[in-house]
């Protein structure tokens, strides 16, 4: 008698429970992805490193030169050593990390905005608009991204003065690099979004939306776009990693963010002449780039599986 009562209560609880929202379903699947959780852990660690670190070391520490201790190996005072002008590598990786992550995120915001706009308009309207926008996208695709990056960085460098934000001064080159990376990496996303829109706009719910008198603008952004959020989120996440790599690359060539503003990339540039003799100069910023990119890619993979509706049966 008692057993039936217990099981009935349990059953009732099952019924009473509200159905899962799409976000809950995605999180449940994301949790099953071990590497993605490792990635999240890595990213949290790096965020803590660059944010909590800033409370311990001031920006002045990061930029203070001390010629008496140039190129000193890791020690008590400077746990990660110092660089060619005696600046503390630890403090510089903290502040450089902020800039690198900032560039990664902002560049992706730029590329997602451009990519989604072009892809959505192209896919939704079709016809001549589609033809023109897609030829333009293909033209951009055909120019090697690094070539574009270097060319634009060179042309625009020094055009924007140093500015202050939140009590910190940023080299104008940060803005240039964000713009340049953002504007050279939207093409892939534009294609994904266009392809998505091409199939989604034929769905009956789009006709239904037009039937209640929705405007094109609201159909594109309110009705169709939320349906293609999954591929956009995945592409954007992976985009952050490639933006950080690109920043490192351009900075390594000396065309990126200009010193004294540190980034992981230009720290590598400065380590170039000390590859053999002072390995701590490149090891730590290099390692941080590696871990960040790795973490983001793991998370991106996890998101791809979690948000892909076709993967529904695999993880449950």
């Amino acid at each position, binding site marked *: 008698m008692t057993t039936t009562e217990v099981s009935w209560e349990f059953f009732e609880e099952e019924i009473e429970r509200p*159905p899962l929202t799409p976000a809950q379903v995605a999180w449940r699947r994301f949790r099953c992805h071990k590497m993605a959780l490792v990635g999240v852990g890595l990213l949290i660690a790096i965020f803590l490193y660059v944010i909590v670190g800033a409370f311990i070391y001031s920006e002045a520490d990061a930029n203070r030169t001390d010629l008496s201790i140039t190129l000193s190996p890791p020690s008590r005072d400077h746990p990660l050593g110092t660089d060619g002008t005696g600046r503390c590598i630890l403090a510089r990786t903290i502040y450089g990390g902020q800039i690198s992550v900032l560039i990664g995120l902002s560049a992706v915001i730029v590329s997602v905005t451009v990519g989604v706009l072009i892809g959505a308009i192209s896919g939704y309207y079709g016809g001549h608009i589609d033809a023109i926008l897609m030829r333009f996208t293909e033209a951009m695709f055909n120019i090697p991204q690094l070539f574009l990056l270097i060319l634009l960085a060179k042309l625009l460098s020094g055009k924007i003065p140093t500015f202050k934000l939140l009590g910190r001064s940023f080299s104008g080159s940060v803005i240039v690099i964000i713009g340049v990376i953002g504007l050279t990496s939207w093409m892939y996303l534009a294609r994904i979004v266009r392809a998505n829109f091409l199939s989604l706009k034929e769905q009956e719910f789009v006709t239904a939306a037009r*039937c*209640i008198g929705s405007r*094109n603008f*609201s159909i594109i952004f309110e009705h169709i776009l939320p349906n293609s959020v999954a591929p956009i989120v995945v592409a954007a996440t992976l985009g952050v990693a490639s933006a950080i790599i690109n920043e490192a690359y351009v900075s390594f060539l000396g065309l990126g963010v200009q010193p004294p503003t540190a980034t992981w990339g230009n720290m590598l540039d400065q380590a170039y002449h000390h590859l053999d003799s002072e390995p701590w100069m490149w090891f730590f910023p290099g390692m941080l780039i590696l871990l960040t990119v790795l973490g983001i890619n793991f998370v991106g993979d996890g998101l791809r599986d979690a948000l892909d509706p076709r993967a529904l049966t695999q993880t449950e």
Partner: protein
Amino acid sequence: MAPLLEVQDLTTRFYTLDGIVHAVNGISYTVEEGDTLGIVGESGCGKSVSVLSVMGLIPEPPGKIAAGQVLYKGQDLLQLDQKQMERIRGKEIAMVFQDPMTSLNPVLTIGHQIGESLIVHLGMGQKEARRQSVELLDMVGIPQAADRYSDYPHQFSGGMRQRAMIAMALACSPNIFIADEPTTALDVTIQAQIIDLVKTLRDQLGMAVIWITHDLGIIAGLAEKVLVMYAGFFIERGSVDDIYGDPRHPYTLALLKSVPRVDRTSKERLAVISGLPPDLLGLPPGCPFAPRCTYMVEQCRKENPCLEPIGFGHEIACWVDVTTGRER
């Protein structure tokens, strides 16, 4: 007084790579306030295209409304631009589609989708739209409407989704409610519920209903006037009593014979209309039904008959008098 909706000589074509598809070929009908009009016919005979043309939802290209007028309160909808048409759709004329599984946006809440037309057409604020949407959900018979407001479509069953679609369509109390086979994807009990719901709401709100279906049984209990469509033409028009009690077109006759009936013995086999509807890419001259027609005479191959009155409000497009089997 001018009728609420007057469709004159509406002709819609699709210009495809294979050739021109003559989907709708010069159909005319009128809808008065509070009317219920049934349009019946087989799949692919232009029923949906004819109402999508009225709504201005034919994709162009490849589609094109080649001729005709759609007068809504005396105003030709085909002449309106995109902006003006948006003001008509959903507010004056609303439509519900066949498959409730695909016509709701899976990533937006039910409430959001119902509220949208209130916000667009009536300029309501979010709060007001929410209150009104809950009321609409309640009106179409969704239990605990306030809780269900923020549900997603996948949390609704098929019948509930179709109810939600109807709530969406009725949000701005349209004058004309077009239902494009809204019960085809539902099982029979839910089908009956939806039909009852539409009937009740029609009487309550005093709107005109255009109901498209291939199920003659539905129309019998719902519509006052019936149009039978074949290959993009209307081939018979009349009151429900005319069509069911005294069908005069061979196609209507054949359709009625192919419907199972409770009062017939189960040993009888259902009649089948042999052949397939004609390819709308290239209609032969003459009556489009001629190749499948058991009453066919010489004239049928030569010339396509026009709708001609044979009784009060009863018209057919046929060369033959089916009561005698001879040419009229």
